[in-house]
């Protein structure tokens, strides 16, 4: 579960409000989609949830652990996939995964099995011994996803995770997200692709100019839609009229 209570963040000594008093609760057992145009504040909020940015105001708790007060315990609760998978280009895939496993203290008994299973599932087993530098964008995305899942985190936080993935891996990831949520755990992800949100999410929130302008279950969202109106049209309407 992720609790976001009254969170705000501004840049340039308060002149630009990137996230403005956001309140959200992402419950256990659900896939929560976070939608918004470029520069709406999605990544800023995700960075605050994960401890990369400090919130100016408000509280963020992951499974009850406050990211400010108990950062290490809170960080152990989630696996994070950033929007830019260009990381540690000069490490091999395997070195990267082991670094992540060490940092998240994955016990030796489980790490090898899990690593091999995930590498196989994402068709990365043959590339794991090579430098990440030699990977395509999609392969980098996959190795980052595998690294985030190694410690079997109860909460998944994924920033634009489908970008660059081939259809097969994208399908697999969506399936894994569903499986994860169905075991009573939490998935929080941001996306530009409304189609994905519509098909995968249990609940969504739309953010624009730092404020959550619409949130609810897919069913509630559909009630907002006028006849024959697509989520895409609603999204455009909401974000352009602001």
């Amino acid at each position, binding site marked *: 579960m992720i609790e976001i209570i009254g969170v705000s963040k501004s840049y340039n000594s308060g002149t630009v409000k990137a996230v403005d008093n956001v309140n959200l609760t992402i419950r256990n057992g659900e896939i929560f989609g976070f939608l918004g145009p470029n520069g709406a504040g999605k990544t800023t909020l995700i960075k605050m949830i994960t401890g990369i940015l400090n919130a100016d105001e408000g509280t963020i708790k992951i499974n009850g652990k406050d990211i400010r007060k108990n950062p290490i315990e809170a960080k152990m609760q989630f696996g994070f996939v950033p929007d830019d998978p260009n990381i540690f280009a000069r490490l091999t895939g395997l070195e990267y995964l082991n670094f992540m496993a060490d940092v998240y203290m994955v016990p030796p008994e489980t790490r090898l099995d899990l690593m091999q299973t995930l590498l196989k599932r994402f068709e990365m087993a043959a590339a794991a011994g090579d430098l990440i530098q*030699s990977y395509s964008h999609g392969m980098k995305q996959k190795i980052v996803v595998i690294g985030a899942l190694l410690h079997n985190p109860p909460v998944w936080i994924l920033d634009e995770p489908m970008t660059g993935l081939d259809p097969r891996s994208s399908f697999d990831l969506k399936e894994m997200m569903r499986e994860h949520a169905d075991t009573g755990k939490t998935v929080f992800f941001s996306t530009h692709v409304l189609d994905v949100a519509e098909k995968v999410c249990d609940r969504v929130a739309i953010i624009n100019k730092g404020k959550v302008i619409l949130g609810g279950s897919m069913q509630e969202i559909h009630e907002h839609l006028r006849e024959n109106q697509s989520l895409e049209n609603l999204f455009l309407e909401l974000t352009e009229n602001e």
Partner: protein
Amino acid sequence: MNRFITLLKTLLINNLGISAIQAKARKNKLEYLKVLGLGVAIAAGVAPSLWLYSKILIQGYDLLAPLGQQGAILILGIVMVSSMIFFFGIFYVINFFYFAGDAQNLLALPLSGWQVLGARFSVVIAYEYLTELPFILPPLLVFGIKSGASLTYWLYALIGFLLIPLLPLSLATIPTVIVMRFANLGRRKDLFKILGGLMVIALAIGYQFLFQKSGINAMDPAFLQNLLTDQYGLVNLISRVFPSTKYLGLALISANKVAGLINLLIFAALSLLAVALAWLVGDKLYFKGLVGSSETTARRKMLTSSDYERFGKGSPALLSYCMKEIRLLFRVPPYFMNCVLTNLLVPVILIIPFLLQSHNKQEALPWEDLISQPVGQTILMVVIVGAVIFLAGSNAITATSLSREGKEFFISKYIPLSYKQQVQAKLLSGYLLGIIGAVLLLIGAIILMPLKIALIGMILAVSLVAIVPIIEAGLLIDIFRPKLDWDNEQKAVKQNLNVVFSILFSILLGGAVLYIVIRFIHSPILAATFMLSCFTVAAVVFYYLLMTRGIEQYRKLEG
């Protein structure tokens, strides 16, 4: 030509960070003041050294004037600057011509080899003017003022100042471009780039010593007499290191005569010829060395179970983080060249000339007499510890350790490893490489001098403690002003003022402690005890600062 000018302008603005400063200043006018303040702080930091340098030059002038050889101070400055530009030039050329992130992007533009190489060359020249200023200005001023020089002298001095970097940088460019053309082959391009860089540096060292050794026998009475009686004896001797510099020296010394003008013209012709040659070689080979240099090939081979098991045992997070730091230091070519290599190379460079000269066994080395005395042993200890401290301050490992993360810094913020442990891991990586540098230096000293075991032990003990506050301070500096916003790796280590601050700190702390030893302590045991105490206290203080103020600041930093 127009394209060349446009490219040059863009590269200059981008690399000197002019637009970035302007952009920040638009938001906050204080930004200009910050830049100015930084300049003043650096100037204040180097002022004492400049003052000392000028004082030595003035004394040198007064000492040499009765012999009519006062021109030697000019030539000394010019030779020193030329050698410096040549050595640093190699690093600049490798970094800026080949490792810069935008190097590849320019390949797609309709530009020819000489235009891109020429523009990059000119940007490096701009940097070299800044680098040479503090070294060449004092001798030019001292000679000009003391000799009551004419306007022609000052005009020649200005022209000379502008011309000086051209030849040594061309000499650094030509072999680098040739070696890189052939290093850009095969699968392990990163490795070849590093090896190529090493080869150019080896060539450069070889070249320097070839000239240094050519026919000089300082003990030959005829040579000494000639040196002192011939008006240009010293000029001739010093300029052997960089023969072309003699012409500029002579041009300045005899600025009022026709000979002066002729010498200046010869120097200018040689410099421009060298540039033309470098650009010509660049036109033919530069792109060939660059095309595909960022390609990486992969084996895409299924891993065996033993490959997995090699890692499967896992390590403590702190150690794993430290290993990641070290792996990247060795694998990213600009980090290897600027952080690891300086650490390993400087001891070697310091030792080679002595090794080359000590082949004559009958000739006692100048320090053999000295180190049999306790005072001599103390001085020796101070010299070696001083070198170790300076090396630790200048290898930039901890002083750029956050900066090197750049845009990846966010990873350090979201992983569940406490900031304290991250700081400790960074210190550990810096310390491990620092130890290697210190031990190499000490091995060099042992090869050169018959040191007693006890003295070696004391120097080692002091060195191992002395580097601790230096690397701690380096990290502290980097935590407070990390340079995270860069677009290619060489900017994190090469164009990072934190390295300058770290060097200044090492000079200040090392200088203060060593000065007290030299001035007041004459027994090696006392000196070692005193230094150990001082550096231990400094290490504890800086560790405390890192763990309190440093961690607090680390927490505030955002990825």
